[in-house]
């Protein structure tokens, strides 16, 4: 883009009173125009002068135009955003409305505790009242309670009480023994979901011709 082109586009952009706007009588627009009109008029004059002179603007004039045209997001703002991000990363607690805080809760010692996730301390099987052995065909459940290498998770990680841990382990062994579930990795459907990062229902299933045949 030549400097001439750039200049004319700049003139077009800051032309103070474009025809359609002149007829706008709504209060906000009128107020806006009166607020910024003076400054724009000055710049319009400056650019017009440059155009009439026929040559490109001098360096000082160019800087003046660019200063006025530049968006207000300056380097300082970007730096401020970086600082905010850096500090916010040190404050991992997600505050919820109605929670109570004392000065101690805003300090670094408490903030650090919210960084590490804590594993389940409640028995989900008791909570939802189902029998794991009856659900051996539920591959989402089976995959949840085995590692990525296909080993049954320890009760330390699952949070199940011994009775339910045994039932869950039995369900996993049964699913693998019946050939319903792979023994060295999670179920392919779960892996596919993990790859896409989407819920399973949202992923289109590949159409096989055999399924369409009656």
């Amino acid at each position, binding site marked *: 883009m030549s400097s001439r082109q750039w200049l004319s586009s700049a003139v077009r952009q800051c032309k103070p009173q474009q025809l359609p706007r002149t007829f706008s009588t709504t209060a906000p627009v009128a107020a806006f125009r009166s607020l910024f009109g003076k400054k724009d008029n000055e710049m319009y004059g400056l650019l017009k002068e440059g155009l009439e002179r026929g040559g490109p603007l001098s360096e000082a004039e160019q800087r003046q135009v660019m200063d006025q045209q530049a968006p207000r997001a300056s380097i300082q703002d970007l730096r401020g955003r970086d600082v*905010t991000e850096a500090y*916010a990363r040190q404050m991992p*607690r997600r*505050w919820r409305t109605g929670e*109570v805080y004392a000065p101690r809760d805003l300090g670094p010692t408490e903030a650090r505790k919210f960084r590490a996730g804590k594993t389940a301390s*409640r028995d989900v099987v008791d909570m939802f009242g189902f029998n794991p052995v009856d659900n051996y065909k539920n591959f989402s459940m089976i995959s949840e309670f085995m590692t990525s290498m296909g080993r049954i998770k320890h009760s330390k990680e699952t949070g199940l009480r011994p009775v339910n841990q045994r039932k869950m382990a039995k369900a996993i062994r049964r699913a693998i023994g019946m050939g319903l579930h792979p023994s060295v990795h999670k179920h392919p459907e779960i892996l596919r979901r993990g790859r896409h990062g989407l819920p399973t229902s949202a992923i289109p299933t590949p159409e096989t011709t055999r399924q369409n045949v009656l």
Partner: protein
Amino acid sequence: MASRSVSPGGALLRTSRIFAMANPIPPPVTDSSSGATSFSSNMATLDFPTHQVITTLSSARKRGEWGLKRSLPLKTTLKSKIPMLRVKAIDSAEQITDFTSATDHGMNRRKFLELGIPLTARRPAGGDGGDSSNQNRPTLSMNLPQKSVFEKEIDTTDLDPDDLAKAIDNRWRFNGPWLAGMTTGKFQKYLEKEVRPRRPEFREFLKKKIAAELHQAAANEALDKGTEPPAPLDASSVTEDQLIDFLRKLRHDSQALYDMVGQFLDLAPLAPPNISQLGLPAGINKITWRQIKNPYATGGPPVTHPSAGLSYLRTSMYMDNHPIYGPQRQHPSVVARIVSPRRQAQTQPAKLGVAGFIVNTPLGDTTSNSRNNTLFDKIDPDVKGGAKVWVQPKRATVDSSGRVVLTVDDASAEAKLVAQELLGLATCLGTTRDERQTGRVESASQIRRRYSAKNAPAMSSTQNYGIQR
């Protein structure tokens, strides 16, 4: 009987602190107890206090005297300026008194009282029901003045067992659980342990209902005929066949069945399901229900009294008076701390802290919501003590989980200036503060001496009203 005579030892114990200590209440339900992976701290301040806060006089405190079994160590109890402790165990197995500081909740309560706003009851989810035009516009009813939790019809604390069912729309405490808040496993256990053994009792309850129904029908008939009203029927006179017929009728009327079961078990009211839950519009589906007006039907009943004992104010409809500027239109504005900034990438809104409670930023078309307000977006480490804004507390309610939900608005410019002037942070109407006066600290006795002078300023006190001489 006015008072029972007790032995001197008994009287001593009765007035002692050990006997006056309230039992701790169960702690709030946290994420860590919900099975899923959670981010939490076991040392963070709880959403509501579970133990009573005790205090003592300064002279007794210097001796470690807190009215407990043994005196407390001075090294720890004298460190804080504010004498507030919570005692977890008066005497543990190791023969020590287990105590910690309670300034967190104690000071928060003091700060809350300074706001001068009453605790209000939540409005029912579908509006008040009286005006049908308001029903689908909860935002409208949100802005209406709220009712104090101490209003007579809402504040039901002591009811006759027979009136429990009648007052269902205004009660906040129920003997039975709130079924919508139970997990499947818990519900199954509840059915097995508590409901199933009460089957014969429920049949008796139904018989009583049938007897009352039959009596009502007979009384109406007698009234029409102009004969003597019949004697009330006894539940034992209801036959098994009548009961079975009634049960069959109930099975086809879900609302009536729920009413009977709900009354028998004193279940907390449940909000009727909406279309998105049922999948059918109201006209088509078979289940019929009555509108529930109880404000706790959607979120479950509160764990405490809806005031949570935080404040006993009944209204905020009073005027604050300024010594120079006279009556003020608004209550004093307060400073809110920006506890966490708005983070757009994480879709995390900014959170404010008012009087130690986490609060949402003001809603609506306010200056703090204007586009060029970047105060909520950034953390500026150069601002000492963190960024703060002036807000106007509007109302406070306690939600089902016992959290205090405060609502704030932007402070008006005038209210903010007046509040700042009182703190010595700003000057109004060209007044300047005397530099010598600003830094001077007056002791209580100096102030008392100033006001006990011959031409003391007119102040209202108990003496003026002749209450005390």
